Every structure is written in structure tokens, then in C-alpha cells.
């Protein structure tokens, strides 16, 4: 009998009332800590459950029935694909921020003063970018390198992070000499004092419009609408500003 109770308790970890599960792109990993603290201050009754990873990974998971209420992508195409798959309501689509790309290096001797073109220096042996197959920041990084006609030259030096946060970790540990990451990551309190960064000109890659959707599952959760409204609030905007996100159109 006691064993059965323990077993039941172990299975009871699923989402309960008053909880909202948020799947968010990895560029938000630090920004979200502040956003969610502010949200929970405004709505103390709602308990947020946060998962971060690559947008493409979350899209695949949601397609396979992952229990997320809200999906914050690093682009617009994945949320649109969720809607197209009938797994989210079109009206819930909300553009919350525009991301920016930077070249980042942490080694004292690594020179990235000329931005993207520095990456072709022989001294830079490994360049980390997010996986362009399923991470929007990886796609943008590849687009920027192609725009400056550097891709073919630097491709042999490129290593791929599973998402943009792992990409930053490769550079932070020094295993990669430099790389292309989200400005939001290097502006975070955790990484602000680590290394140097140079912004990549916005015209060299497709605009990183980031959108959120409420999933079919999240529609029944009253907290979902509150959360989307919060993303557009002045308080949230102030936090997005601090992490270098531009205002969406």
C-alpha cells in the first residue's frame, strides 16, 4: 500500500492548476529570469514552468504533443508552422522582440575588432554558431557569413551548438575561439563582463523577428492570455531593452 502511494506521488509531477508552462528559445535564457520574476510579482498565483532550447526542437516537440502552454520562438516561422499544423490559434501570435547578432570572443588575445571579417583570421581556429538546421540564430549567422561571402572560407572552422546558449558556452569556455551569438546573451548580467563583442550589421541577415503563440493546450489555461499581455507591457519592454532586443513592428 505504501509502495503504491509512493508510486502515485512520483507520477503526480504533471502540471497543476495555477501553473503555466513556457517553452522559450535559448537566446531568452537569461532575459527570461528577469521577465518571469517580474511576471510572478504581478501574478503571484501563477507558477511559471520554463524550458529553454532551440526553437526547432520545441516545434518538433509541440508537434508530438509536448505539454507547453506558450511557445516563445526566436523567429516567426516556427510559431507560424505551429499554427499551420493546427496546434495553436492564429490570433494568439504575438511579435515580442527583434533579436540582434554579435561576434563574441572571450580569449584575451583573440582579436575580433573588425567584427565578422575577423573570423577569417588564421588565429581564430574554431568558430561556434548555432545549428542552422533548427536554431534561428544559427540560420541568421550563416546568412550573415554568406552575405559577406565568407561562408565557404570559414565553414571548415565552424562548430555547431545545439542551440544558441550552448554556442555561447562553447565560446565562454574557450573551446571555440570566437563565434556568433545573440546580443541578449552577452548583455546578460552573467556574461556582460566576459570577453568582447562586436555587433553584426543588421542588413546582412534576415530580421530576427521573434514571436510567441499560445498552443491549443494553453488555450484552456487562463494564465496564457495574461502572459502574452505581459510580454507587451511596459515592464517587459524595459527588460527586453536592457537585453538589447529591438521593438517589433
Amino acid at each position, binding site marked *: 500500500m505504501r509502495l503504491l502511494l509512493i508510486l502515485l506521488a512520483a507520477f503526480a509531477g504533471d502540471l497543476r492548476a495555477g501553473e503555466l508552462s513556457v517553452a522559450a528559445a535559448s537566446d531568452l535564457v537569461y532575459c527570461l529570469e528577469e521577465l518571469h520574476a517580474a511576471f510572478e510579482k504581478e501574478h503571484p498565483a501563477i507558477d511559471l514552468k520554463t524550458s529553454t532550447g532551440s526553437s526547432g526542437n520545441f516545434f518538433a516537440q509541440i508537434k508530438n504533443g509536448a505539454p507547453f502552454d506558450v511557445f516563445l520562438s526566436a523567429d516567426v516561422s516556427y510559431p507560424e508552422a505551429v499554427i499551420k499544423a493546427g496546434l495553436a490559434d492564429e490570433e494568439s501570435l504575438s511579435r515580442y522582440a527583434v533579436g540582434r547578432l554579435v561576434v563574441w570572443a572571450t*580569449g584575451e588575445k583573440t582579436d575580433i575588432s573588425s567584427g565578422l571579417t575577423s573570423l577569417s583570421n588564421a588565429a581564430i581556429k574554431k568558430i561556434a554558431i548555432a545549428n542552422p538546421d533548427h536554431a534561428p540564430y544559427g540560420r541568421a549567422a550563416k546568412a550573415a557569413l554568406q552575405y559577406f561571402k565568407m561562408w565557404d572560407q570559414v565553414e571548415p572552422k565552424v562548430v555547431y551548438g545545439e542551440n544558441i546558449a550552448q554556442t555561447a558556452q562553447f565560446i565562454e569556455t574557450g*573551446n*571555440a575561439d570566437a563565434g556568433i551569438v545573440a546580443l541578449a546573451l552577452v548583455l546578460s548580467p552573467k556574461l556582460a563582463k566576459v570577453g568582447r563583442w562586436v555587433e553584426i550589421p543588421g542588413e546582412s541577415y534576415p530580421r530576427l523577428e521573434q514571436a510567441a503563440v499560445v498552443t491549443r493546450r494553453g488555450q484552456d489555461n487562463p494564465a496564457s492570455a495574461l502572459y502574452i499581455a505581459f510580454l507587451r507591457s511596459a515592464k517587459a519592454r524595459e527588460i527586453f531593452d536592457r537585453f538589447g532586443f529591438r521593438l517589433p513592428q
Partner: protein
Amino acid sequence: MAFSPEIWQSVLLTFRLATVTTILLVLIGLPLAHWLNTSRGRGIIFLETLVTLPIVLPPTVIGFYLLIFFAPQNPLGAAWVGLTGHTLAFSFTGLVIGSVIYSLPFAVQPFQSALKAIPPTLIEAARISGANWGQIFWHISLPIARRGIGTGIILSFAHTVGEFGVVLMLGGAIPGVTKVASIQLYDEVQKLNYAQAHSIALVLLVISFALILAISLLQRHRDEEIH
């Protein structure tokens, strides 16, 4: 079934990694197993525990520590960069190091029990008759322990083919260098290329089944020999 060149590349890379790892594990594992079996030192139990640890250790623990050790800020990482000009992370060599650690107990444990089964009196008799170390190993130890050693070899290979977490943390998914079949499968699933994902999954499934079947056959033969 869809077998793109990328899939073949990742499957071949997986075989290369598993083969190199297994050869190294035989070279390291056999002397290590012999030493663990025969040493009476006080610290030996700790060493044996350390060797067995990867059976239960989350692969992310191995991946994390290796990433830290490989970093150029670390003396080991710096020495390697000084020697070769590139970091161990994101390299085939780095994956081999990770795999050897990850699969070590899967070689050493079967080796240990295989070597234990050799009657010490036999070795003693050979030694008295004037056989040297090499002759004893090739003509007595190896023939008696061959099935156990075979089990260790197959298990090491199979376990390395099944590696994922260590490679995900350490590899950087470079096609032909660190993007092994399990990582390729993960990427194809994220891209929603289920046809490609099915092909890789099937290849891995069939290989794993065949390897475990081979071990079962080896074990059965050994049991028949004993009885």
C-alpha cells in the same frame, strides 16, 4: 528508406569512432583488468570503483568535465593546443577520449571475469616449464579467456555506437568529424525529416541487435564448454 550521403557519412563515422575506441580499450583494458585482478594494494578498490563509475554516471557529467579539461584555459587543454594547434573539443580525438572513458567499464569488467576464470595453477605450471610472459599470454590466457574478451570487445563497440550525451556536449556536430549517427538522428528529428530519422534509427537498431545477439551466442558457447 532514405539513405542520403550525410547519413552514410555519420554511420561510417560512428563505426570509425567505435573501432578506434574498442582497439584502445583492448590495449588499456586487458592490462588494467589483469592488474585489478592481481593487485592487493589498499587503493585498488577505489581504482576499481573509478573504472566502473561510467556505468552509472550521467554522460553529461563526463561531457561537462571533459569540456572544462579541454578548454585552453586549463593546463591540459593548453598543452594540447600548444602541441597540435587546435582544441580537443570538437575534434575526433576529443570524442575518442570521451568514448574510452564512457565505455571503459564495458571492456574492463568482462575482461576481469574472463581472466579470473584462468586456473592460476596452469599459469604456474607454464612458468615452471620455462614459458615467458608473452607465451603464457598467447598460448594459455588468451585461448581460455577468448570468449570473455570477445564479450568485452563487442560490448565496448556497441556502447560506443550508442553514445549520445557526451558527443552532444563535446562534439559541435561537425559533419564527418564529430556528427555521429545518434547526433544525426537527433538533428533529423528536429528538422522533422522523419524518413531520414527512421533510416538512421533502423541502422542503429539492427547493429545493436546483432551485437547483443553475438554476445549471447558467445556466452552460450562458454556455458556449454564449462558443462
